[in-house]
């Protein structure tokens, strides 16, 4: 780890000023400190933002507002979230470990960096870490990498489970900079790698995430998250599905489906949703709709199994969520 200056922000203004001077924000630190130790991240200065007033969970009839400094464990344990947004609570409790969930913030969860081994190894080529050096994963060990949203420059998966649930629910990321507040649709927040994989999100330079807002919709109550992993707990997804359904008298009125572990950003599946809406709920329908889950996939040498796996993951989760009381 390289030396750095450290300060603690008492309010938004001091945090934004520190960032303008080049400091990086730190909250839970569970990603940043790990990457600093590997020298993937080399900030000259850190500003601790944990004293900022972003700690509330506010559930209203029309929307849930989650402060950016709420811990993963706090949000997962919130009774209203568990009842009205099971997909959020499940995605959180299937993430990381109990210790890390007690540390990691919601804002930081969205800002997680990839788990690609080449990204984390400073001796390897990586366009995301060191633009223009190439991508060692494309011709290397890529069993865990993405099949959707990839480019010639990068094939790393996005690591967050929570973000998959939030993309399915059309959440908004609320940010603040010197010019005031911005509200960014979460589907616009995460950027596919394209030719600039080092640009991971649309957050302005030095901007703070202050909160995430999630609209309350009828289907959010009937929702859930399925995560398929190489071991049963404390592991990143190989394939994952966030599903929310509104089924009235046997007919699907609304459907929200997003997948993780297979794409470079949390990946919404409009073709699957369109195949469901207006149709009669049945096992055949789940299979037919889920068959579109890997549309446009570009498998790599070692991850071709994900094409079938993601279809089966979505099919199973559609059946599970449709069967909820």
């Amino acid at each position, binding site marked *: 780890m390289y*030396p*750095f*200056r450290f300060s603690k922000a008492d309010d938004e203004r001091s945090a934004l000023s520190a960032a303008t001077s080049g400091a990086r924000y*730190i909250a839970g630190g569970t990603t940043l*400190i790990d990457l*600093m130790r590997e020298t993937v991240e080399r900030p000259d200065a850190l500003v601790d933002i944990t004293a900022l007033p972003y700690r509330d969970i506010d559930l209203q009839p029309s929307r849930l507002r989650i402060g950016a400094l709420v811990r993963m464990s706090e949000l997962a344990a919130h009774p209203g979230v568990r009842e009205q947004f099971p997909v959020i609570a499940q995605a959180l409790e299937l993430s990381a*470990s109990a*210790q*890390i969930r007690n540390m990691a913030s919601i804002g930081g969860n969205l800002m997680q960096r990839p788990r690609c081994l080449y990204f984390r190894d400073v001796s390897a080529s990586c366009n995301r870490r060191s633009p223009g050096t190439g991508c060692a994963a494309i011709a290397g060990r890529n069993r865990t990498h993405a099949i959707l949203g990839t480019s010639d420059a990068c094939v790393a998966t996005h690591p967050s489970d929570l973000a998959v649930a939030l993309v399915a629910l059309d959440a908004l990321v609320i940010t603040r900079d010197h010019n005031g507040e911005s509200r960014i649709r979460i589907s616009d927040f995460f950027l596919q790698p394209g030719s600039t994989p080092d640009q991971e999100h649309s957050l302005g330079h030095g901007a703070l995430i202050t909160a995430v807002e999630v609209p309350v919709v009828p289907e959010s109550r009937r929702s859930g998250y399925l995560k398929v992993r190489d071991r049963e*707990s404390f592991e990143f997804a190989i394939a994952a599905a966030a599903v929310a359904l509104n089924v009235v008298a046997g007919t699907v009125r609304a459907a929200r489906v997003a997948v993780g572990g297979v794409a470079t950003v949390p990946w919404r599946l409009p073709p699957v949703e369109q195949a469901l809406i207006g149709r009669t709920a049945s096992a055949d329908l789940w299979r037919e709709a889920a068959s579109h889950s890997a549309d446009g996939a570009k498998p790599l040498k070692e991850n071709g199994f994900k094409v079938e796996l993601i279809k089966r993951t979505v099919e199973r989760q559609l059946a599970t969520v449709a069967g909820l009381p």
Partner: protein
Amino acid sequence: MASAPLLAGCGEDEQANTATSSVVRVRINGEAREITVDNRTSLLDMLRERAGLTGTKKGCDQGACGACTILLNGQRINSCLTLAVMHDGAEITTIEGLERNGRLHPLQQAFIDEDAFQCGYCTAGQIMSGVGCIREGHTGSPAEIREWMSGNICRCGAYTNIVTAVAHATPNA
């Protein structure tokens, strides 16, 4: 700081609150401590190398094994994944702080009674995590204990007895 070693964080610092070092005031196991640390020092390294509390163990140093688990303001965390400098004013409990008046904590006693360790390297972290798990109310069944203790790795494979120890200690902890 150009001469600072890359793997710093463990050595003595020359002075307080320089550009890259800071004074941290914490209560560790009930005792007030004031320690000057290089900003890079993890909470784990401060406890082990500066506070002299070597019961907390360093396994992976990347948040994957749980050997460094402590209670920070009453909640279990990985002390390797956080900076000491971030915790001015915090209340910290380590394995050394669990006993009361010479009596082991019920979970420490349960680990002995149930033979819940072999080499012992992960044990301090397992016990601290177990204390947190019991407080959080996630010890209702062996399956629930396994899931909520999954942040603690035991390479000897003492898991069966660890789960039993946590379950048996739950009513007494």
